């Protein structure tokens, strides 16, 4: 029986993990410590909790065995495993990003950051601020200026039930639709708003009508929501 060299890792909350050296070396940080002969006793990792560390070790195990010449793990299988693995709460995902950075596990950092990027790319700036605890330090005028410089990047997409047609409309027109207006003002939607009960030709008519109402409203004093909401009720019943 060949003895496999193992290292001991200790998480911030005192959990002990015994890991094969080859697996632990997926972390460039740990690899450095081993090569510098600092790994005789348990390696303390004060920045990583036991729960997160166990996940990181899982990742390293899976990816070490895949680079083994005897392993038959194909790229697709590994990708499928990664997709399953990364399906965690946002809290855990953020912790994994920090752990992957601290432990210098390049593949895991790439996977976690890409996952968050894919998650946020369609979001609005307000949702981003909420997610990352960011305080808006623009004055309303400054923010308006920045928005205007790239106004086309803010267009909202409305999708019909079959995800066939996407319509990009300006936020002011989408607000004409009371229903969508509420969703927008409550910041409870992503940039793509699916409307399950409306087909694309009806949606086109509604948008056309809203456009007219917005133009009319800009020259009158009161917006005519009533006609718009009437139209909403009809197709929604369809």
């Amino acid at each position, binding site marked *: 029986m060949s003895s496999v060299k193992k290292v001991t890792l200790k998480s911030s909350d005192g959990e002990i993990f015994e890991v094969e050296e080859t697996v632990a070396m997926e972390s460039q940080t740990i690899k450095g410590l081993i090569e510098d002969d600092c790994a005789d006793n348990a390696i303390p990792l004060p920045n990583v909790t036991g729960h997160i560390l166990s996940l990181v070790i899982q990742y390293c195990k899976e990816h070490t065995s895949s680079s083994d010449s005897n392993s038959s793990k194909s790229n697709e299988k590994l990708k499928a495993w990664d997709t399953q693995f990364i399906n965690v709460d946002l809290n855990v995902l953020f912790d994994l990003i920090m752990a992957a950075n601290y432990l210098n596990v390049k593949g895991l950092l790439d996977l976690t950051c890409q996952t968050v990027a894919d998650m946020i790319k369609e979001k609005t700036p307000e949702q981003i601020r909420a997610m990352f605890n960011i305080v808006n330090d623009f004055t309303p005028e400054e*923010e308006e200026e920045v928005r205007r410089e*790239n106004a086309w*990047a803010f267009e909202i997409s409305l999708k019909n039930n079959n995800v066939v047609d996407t319509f990009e409309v300006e936020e002011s027109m989408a607000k004409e639709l009371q229903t969508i207006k509420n969703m927008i003002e409550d910041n409870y939607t992503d940039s793509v708003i699916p409307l399950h009960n409306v087909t694309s030709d009806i949606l086109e008519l509604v948008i056309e009508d809203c456009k007219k109402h917005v133009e009319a409203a800009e020259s009158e004093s009161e917006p005519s929501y009533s006609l718009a909401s009437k139209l909403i009720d009809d197709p929604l019943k369809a």
Partner: protein
Amino acid sequence: MSQSKMSNSGSKWRWGRRWRSCRLRLSSNNNLPSLPEELLEEILVRLPVKSLLRFRCVQKSWSTLVQNPTFIAKHLRHHQTKTKNPSILVEGMDKEGNFKYLLQSHPDEGGGVRIVDFKGDSMGRLFTLRPLTSMFACINGIICFSGVFRGHYGFVLWNPAIRKGKVVSYPNPPDCPAHFVRIRSCHAFGFDQNSNDYKVVRVVEHRKKSVENSITRYRSYFFVYSLRADSWTQIFGTPVQHNNIKLHSRCDEIFFNGFHHWIGSLNSEPGDSYDHHIIMSFDMSHEVFQIIRFPDMFFPNKTLAVFNDCLACIVYGINEYIDIWVMREYGVEDSWTKQLVVGHLLGIQRPLQILGNEEILLVDEKKTLVLYNIGSQEMKILQRTGYPKIFMPTQAFGYVESLVSFTGGDVFES
């Protein structure tokens, strides 16, 4: 904020009635750990251009970051290396000789075609004429092409991803040398990685017929434009002056490794005919010209390309095979090696470009654009739905979005 809180509590019943069939995503949270700045940057660098432009208004530091040249370079580098199936930018001609442009997503990503209509949008209105031999190039997500804009003959730098561009006029033509006649100009677009600057080279060629024998002499003037300096300078003392080189037309060019390369014909001895093909390279950083020779077996037709991170030459025209030669060590003429023979390809007229390291863009006999995968030996017809009816492809580039922006002078939005 308080307004939305009110509607929140009052509308719960309404949501139950109306929203049941609509998809909702609640962004409650706020127990999320705070990510340090360099990790936030790791996430931002992976976002598409449109998202980053929208997120500029999240907070001031993000707006600054998106315009920071270091971040822009990092973002570009990431997307250039990670994009497995880049989009393809195609230039072609209709039957009247007008140029048409399209951006096509890679066949493995859907192959959807978007006509890039320069005439239709605000930039197109500036743009009135394009001579047949003018420049069209694409580097780092920036498209560069020359033409007549608002009455000025010059070129445009255009970044379609951020929908911004810049018009630059050519400098006034120099006086023609005695007994010479001006024939045409060549241009090249390139990137100087040492100073993170985009440059355009303009070569103005003159020709004179000698009386005693029928050797034609050429003389050229060289100008370089720097985007950073937003100005032109003239370059003197190039090998072209001394060696009487005639540059070939626009399709035999490539930008690689910080150098622009033209194929040209060299006649160094009186009495020689113009049969020796050479590569003339221009170092974008040091602004110097150099000559690189081909082995004699590169016959009859050549296209310059990039393959496996080396300067390559696609040699074709004898049979149904294509030879890909690589200059293993850049600048070392002895290091030309036949890397690959691709075939058996029937009905190919001309190779255009190598995409990544796996695929070749070609024009077939029917003047259709096709994509050939070297590994799988599969030929995919790109020129399908979405292309204009009569369209003869002349150039094609891989295209990846970038954030690179322009300042000063004639900047416009499209």
